[in-house]
Structures are given as structure tokens and as C-alpha cells.
């Protein structure tokens, strides 16, 4: 059994290892045999203007769409966590529906929608697409946490005369903060690496995955892209591990209180 697990890990990490190896490889096209060690790509990617622009664009889209998705997710989860209201299951289904829609259909539907509305494709339309994709994930993270929270805490606040907004601000919100952070991270990483929907909705300014797809076809920039990806991988690993550790500690502390 342990052997099986180990084999799966090898399978999962083989391509990552390949990427790591080729980020130090001298040749431009990744193929064997290897041509020699170099740190050149790591130095060069910093100067690649169009890649930097694409990274920036992706970061902006990811940040904005995540903030909106998480905000909407909070609103939705708060409403869904209450006792049933008319049409609750329909609303839930609608909100979670992007999960069951293939990206190609979603991308096209939104493209057509924007076309009819007369909105030209741009980073905003990509952001809108990403909000639609991320929202179900944020709800799936926030809703269980909200349901977990002892309802009596909120009731106590009401008894003490706090209105719904104050209750949320001072009672609910701090309790779900770790989940909010998780939701934000999930939304961010989903958006940052998203290619399929973005390919339909992108305007003149490219996002990083779109730039990457182009680099696959025009290999002169490929090694730099691989180097960037390795850097992003390490960075995100640190962030995710850090966030997860913090979340567990924070929730444990909250539960203990």
C-alpha cells in the first residue's frame, strides 16, 4: 500500500521534476539530451517586458476577481446558512452550477453574452469569467464553516441589541476569517492559472496562461516561462502551507475560546 502511494507520488511529480530540470537547461527547446546547466533563464525572465505585463495582468485579474468572488460568496453563504427560504435549493443549485458546466461552454456563453451587451473583451471580461468560476468554490469553503459556528453566538448578539450588520462585523466575520482567507487563496490560484475561459474572454492585454500558451508555440521564450513557473510554484507552496498552518492554529484557538 505504501509502495502504491509512493508510486503515485512519483507519477505526480515526474512532470514537475522535468520542469525543474529544464529550467536549468541551456537549450531553448526542452528535449533530451540535456545541454548543460545555466541560471540564465532565471536572470533573463526579469527583463522580459511582455511576460512581466502578462504576469501583472494575471495578478490584477486574480486579485480583483477573488475579492469579488469571496465577497459574493460571503453574502451567499450567510443567506444560505439560515433556515430555508423559498426557492433555497434552486438558488443553491444556480450558485453552484458553474461547477458542472464545462469551461468551453461557460466561455462561449459569456462571450456571446458580452457580445450581445456590446462589451468588448478585456481584462474585465476575463475577471467576470473568473468570478463565475470561483464563486462556487468560495461558497463550498465558507458555507460549512458558517454552519459550524454556533448559532447561539449570533443570537446572543441580537439579544444584546446588535443589528444584523454589527453582528456580522463583530461576531460572524472574525470567526470565519480563516475560511475567508482559504477561499481567497483558492479563488486566486484558480484565476491565476486559468486558461480555458480566459482564452474566450481575453482582450488586447494577455493574462499569463495565455502568454504561456503562446510561448509553447514560439519556443524562444519558453525556458524563461519555465523558470517563472518554478519560482511561482515555490512561492505558492510557501504561501499555501503558511496559510493552512495559520488557519488551523486560528481555528483551534477560536474553538478553544
Amino acid at each position, binding site marked *: 500500500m505504501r509502495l502504491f502511494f509512493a508510486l503515485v507520488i512519483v507519477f505526480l511529480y515526474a512532470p514537475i521534476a522535468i520542469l525543474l530540470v529544464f529550467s536549468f537547461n541551456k537549450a531553448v527547446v526542452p528535449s533530451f539530451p540535456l545541454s548543460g546547466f545555466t541560471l540564465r533563464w532565471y536572470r533573463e525572465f526579469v527583463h522580459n517586458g511582455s511576460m512581466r505585463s502578462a504576469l501583472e495582468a494575471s495578478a490584477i485579474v486574480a486579485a480583483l476577481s477573488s475579492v469579488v468572488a469571496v465577497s459574493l460568496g460571503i453574502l451567499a453563504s450567510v443567506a444560505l446558512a439560515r433556515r430555508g427560504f423559498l426557492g433555497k435549493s434552486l438558488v443553491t443549485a444556480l450558485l453552484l452550477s458553474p461547477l458542472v458546466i464545462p469551461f468551453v461552454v461557460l466561455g462561449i456563453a459569456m462571450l456571446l453574452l458580452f457580445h450581445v451587451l456590446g462589451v468588448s473583451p478585456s481584462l474585465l471580461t476575463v475577471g467576470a469569467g473568473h468570478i463565475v468560476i470561483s464563486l462556487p468554490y468560495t461558497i463550498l469553503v465558507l458555507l460549512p464553516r458558517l454552519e459550524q459556528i454556533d448559532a447561539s453566538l449570533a443570537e446572543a448578539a441580537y439579544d444584546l441589541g446588535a443589528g444584523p450588520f454589527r453582528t456580522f462585523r463583530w461576531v460572524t466575520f472574525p470567526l470565519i476569517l480563516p475560511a475567508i482567507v482559504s477561499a481567497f487563496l483558492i479563488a486566486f490560484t484558480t484565476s491565476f492559472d486559468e486558461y480555458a475561459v480566459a482564452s474566450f474572454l481575453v482582450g488586447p492585454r494577455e493574462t499569463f496562461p495565455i502568454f504561456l500558451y503562446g510561448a*509553447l508555440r514560439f519556443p524562444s521564450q519558453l525556458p524563461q516561462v519555465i523558470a517563472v513557473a518554478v519560482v511561482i510554484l515555490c512561492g505558492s507552496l510557501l504561501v499555501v502551507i503558511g496559510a493552512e498552518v495559520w488557519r488551523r492554529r486560528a481555528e483551534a484557538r477560536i474553538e478553544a475560546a
Partner: protein
Amino acid sequence: MEGEPFDRRLSRADMLRLAALAAGAGVVAGPAAAADAAVARLTKESGRLQVMDWVGYENDMPHHAMFAAYLNKHPHNKPLFSHMASESDALGKFHAGAHPDLFRPYVGWVKYFAKSGLVQPWNPKLISNFKHLNPFMVKAGQYHGKQYGIPDDWGFDAILYRKDKVHPKARSWGLIFDERYKGKIAWFDDIGMITVAGLYLKAKNPWNQTSAELDRSVKFLKQKIKLTKLLWAYESDLWQAFRAGDVWIAYAWPNDWVQMKKKFPVVYMHPREKPVAWVGMFMLLKNTPRPHLAHAYVDAWSSKKSGKWLEDNYGYGHANTQARPSSSQLLKALQLANPRAVTLPNAYLDRDIPQRALYAHLWEQVKASG
């Protein structure tokens, strides 16, 4: 100004100011010249030049070789690039509201765009390198006598094969349909395959086949697609597969021969049914606020120096007849010594496809049956 194929709308206030300037300047320099200069100052084009081009043409390091001359003359109007994945992608983007100043479809689309009302003709007098451009290509960029397309890069569609593995039965397009090499063939992912099938099956006009001929071509392609390993859309896809030995025969461009020759014994075969020649055409969008800048950009692209750089770095031909690459092999593959290389009897220059929507539809069906 009469004769100018594009004019800026001037407001009434502008007109008055123009008249005053003209009156003043006219005393010194003569009316026509003064008016010209005045208009040029007033209608000074500003902002970055919006260029829509295929992926990969914007970097051209070092120093943006293809349009370095433009950058020197107009440092404040650096080009801002957007991408077109294909001509139909560009078309879709125009309908979705994109307004670049110029873009670069290929010769088969010139008539379509000229008729579409989306573009306006160029003024060749504003392009100093125009006189050096290959006359056959220049003619292909004309519609109803107006110069809608300025040719830039060009090449052939022919067959590349490894002579150590492949022994063709004839010097013919049939090689990419050869049953003996199942799984080792690569086609180009484009409706040009229907044209080539038509050429091979002796349709009267492969670019405008009758429904019977189309039926035959499409049936043929659906049957033969099972022999292919992949359909390539970018040369690097083809090179990767070819280099790895996954593919031995391919529908290919001259540069593919030059590149693969470095590793394998390969032949670039011009079939007896004749290869097809393709030419990139700059086209100017209507109502662009920067027509002069656009002409300047195209002029920079059309220079001999840019031409040579293009040939050396991309392996395509360049329309400037004086541009010669460093590689003698490329020179040979492009038949650059022959100014009639892109036209009969050497090749069929690609042209408008009146039933393009139908061809595209049918090609999708061919791919679906793969």
C-alpha cells in the same frame, strides 16, 4: 485634400484655424504646400499605433528589427500589439469592437476584407519601399485597382519528407495521402487542405470547387486523415514532432526544410500538381486615427534591411525583391532568384475562396472524423 484615400474630419473651428494658418503660411510657402503642412500639424496623429498581428511578431529582439526605422522616426508612437490567432479570429475581434489601426491577414483574404467595408486602401505614394516590392505580390494585394494589401512575408506550401525513410512513388501531393506511411504524416490545420485535395483530385478550380468536387475532396480527406499523426498549426509543433521522429512526411513551408535539414536528410518537394504560394498582406482599417503612422510602420517593414532580417530569422521570404537571406539553402528553397516564383508556372498563388464558410464547415467535419 483630394486624392487622399483617407481624410480626417475637421471641425468647423479647425477649418477656420486652418484657413488662417494657410493664409498666413501661404504668403511664404505657396498655398498647397502650406495647407498640407497645416493639416499635418493639426491632424497630428497621436497615441500608440495599434497593430494586430500574429503571435510572435512583436518582440523581434534585439531592437525590434522589423520596425526599427519606424521607432526611430516616431518614438512617441510605439506600436501596441494585439494578437490575431487567425484571420477569422481577427474578424471576430473586429465585430466584438476591437479597433486596431492595421492588421495582417494573408492573400486569400484580401478580397473578402476589401469587400467587407472594414478596411481602406493604402496610398502607395506614402510608402518609400513600395517600388521594391515584388510586382506579382503587389498585384495580388489589389482589388478593383486599389491597393488594399501591402505584401510582406511569403512562402510555399509543399511537401517535406525524410529521404532515409520515405520513397515517394511520384513527385506529387499524393505523398501526404500515402497509405504506406500511416501514422507518420502531418497535415496543416487549415482549409487549405481542401484546396490541396482538390488540386490532387484534379478539380477544375480548387479554390472554388463544385459541390460534386467538394463531396469528393471531403470524402477523400475523411478517409485519409486516419493516416496522419497530427495537424500542425504552428511550425514549432511540426518541428517537435519531426525532430522526435514521430513524423516523416509533412505539408510544410520552406523554412521547415531549412530547420529539419540540420538534423535529417530531408527533401523539400514541389509536387507536379504545383505547390501553393502564400503572401502576408498588411491591411489598413477604415476610420483609423493614425493612417500616416500606419504607412510609416509598413514602410519600415518593407525595407530591404527588414526583409533580410525576416528571411534570416523566420525563414519566410520577404516581398522586397532586394532582400536576400544569409542562408543559401533558404535562398534555394524560396527560389528567390526567380521573381516569378509565386506565380504560374511555378506555383499557384493562394487566392480568395468564395465558399469560405462552406470550406471551413467541411474542414471541421473532416477533423471530427479523425
